[in-house]
């Protein structure tokens, strides 16, 4: 019976430790970060593809960009009409500079890709 009591105690201690750790780490995440330099806006005045296509497929396009830039160093996107764009989030967000451009849909669908773990969020730059 002693061992069972000990087991309960250990379980309780472990759970409370985890809870404390969880709360603590959450609190830490909310500390404001240092303001960084602005993303240099790429000059592009037209969209790389029609609006409807981009609404439905921007995740494939951006995922493709991420792959080809990081793995192959290919930074130039050639659109279907032959015009060239720099593969960068700044290419899109330069014109679509409403700070809620990403978030209004993404929070509705509760889709949270971790773009802003590395990239600067429009919430912080605009």
């Amino acid at each position: 019976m002693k061992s069972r009591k000990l087991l309960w105690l250990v379980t309780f201690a472990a759970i409370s430790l985890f809870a404390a750790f969880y709360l603590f780490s959450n609190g830490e995440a909310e500390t404001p970060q240092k303001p960084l330099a602005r993303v240099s806006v790429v000059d592009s005045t037209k969209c790389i593809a029609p609006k409807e296509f981009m609404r439905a497929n921007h995740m494939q396009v951006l995922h493709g960009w991420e792959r080809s830039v990081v793995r192959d160093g290919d930074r130039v996107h050639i659109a279907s009409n032959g015009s060239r764009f720099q593969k960068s989030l700044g290419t899109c967000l330069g014109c679509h500079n409403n700070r809620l451009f990403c978030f209004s849909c993404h929070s509705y669908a509760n889709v949270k890709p971790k773009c802003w773990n590395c990239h600067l969020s429009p919430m912080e730059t605009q």
Partner: protein
Amino acid sequence: MKKVVMPLVMVAILALLPFLGVQYAGLSYLFGVIIPYTATVVLLAGFVFRMVDWLRRPVPFRIPTTCGQEKSLEWIRYDRLESPHRFWEAAARVLFEVFFFRSLFRNTKAELHKDSNLVYGSHKWLWLGGLAFHWSLLIIVLRHSRFFFPMVPGFTDFLEHADGFFDITLPTFYSTDAVVLAAITFLVFRRLNDAKMRLLSLQTDYFPLFLIAAIVVVGVLMRYVVRLNIMPVKDQMLRLVNFSFDAPGEIGALFYVHLFLVSVLAIYFPFSKLMHAGAIFLSPTRNLPNDSREKRHINPWNAAIKFRTYSEYEDDYREKMKKAKLPIEKQ
């Protein structure tokens, strides 16, 4: 072999139906609105019907299966879970069964060894596989609540966060997706691996496994491979939750495959072994307290027994007994 292939073919046909229907026949209203509503109605009505049917069955006697010390004298310690004595102890026993499959944990396996020795050993793989399967399925279903609420509730956020713990791939990889697929694979091969299990398994055992596997695979494809546009999906699910009959927007055909297979699962549920989800709460060997020695349980439809006491007998025959000079208690 037929009983493995047939369910597989059936699931393949069921998956193909909505794909062809939506892609080539434009039946998105049928597969996106009519069938989901029908399936929900059948699931709810069927589930309630089966449960009410079972609840109405009389359980006159206490028949729990116990494997612990029964409650008797004050100074004898009894086992609250293995031989429950009060309602709450029996309820706790059922809940432990539901959440942790305690009876499967005691699963043993008998093997005939080469030297013709029969050997019994602990065999926990079914317990582990079943637990992994059911828990990840529960988490996956709860995670889907993000499609049914305009504002996503906190527990969904927490679940997604915990499930995407490894924080790899884009969109974030959910560990339950891998766990549930691994568990289904194990559960299928468990049935195929052993001659005894192959003999015991029926089409009704394979069909739900294949169906759930197909649902998971299509879901995984939508999320990680095709990267389906999710906005019209959320619109459509919100419409369904609000009992709206509006036509769905432009959604990829894969979504309709997923939704149709889920609808098939929902319709299949009340008529099949899947009802163990509700039935486990009603199993009398689990949910009854072991109090037969403390309380007398009388079968309610026993015919009433008419007792006749000796004094009544004497009242009837007193004069005759006096004449025969028999001893009488009351003069």
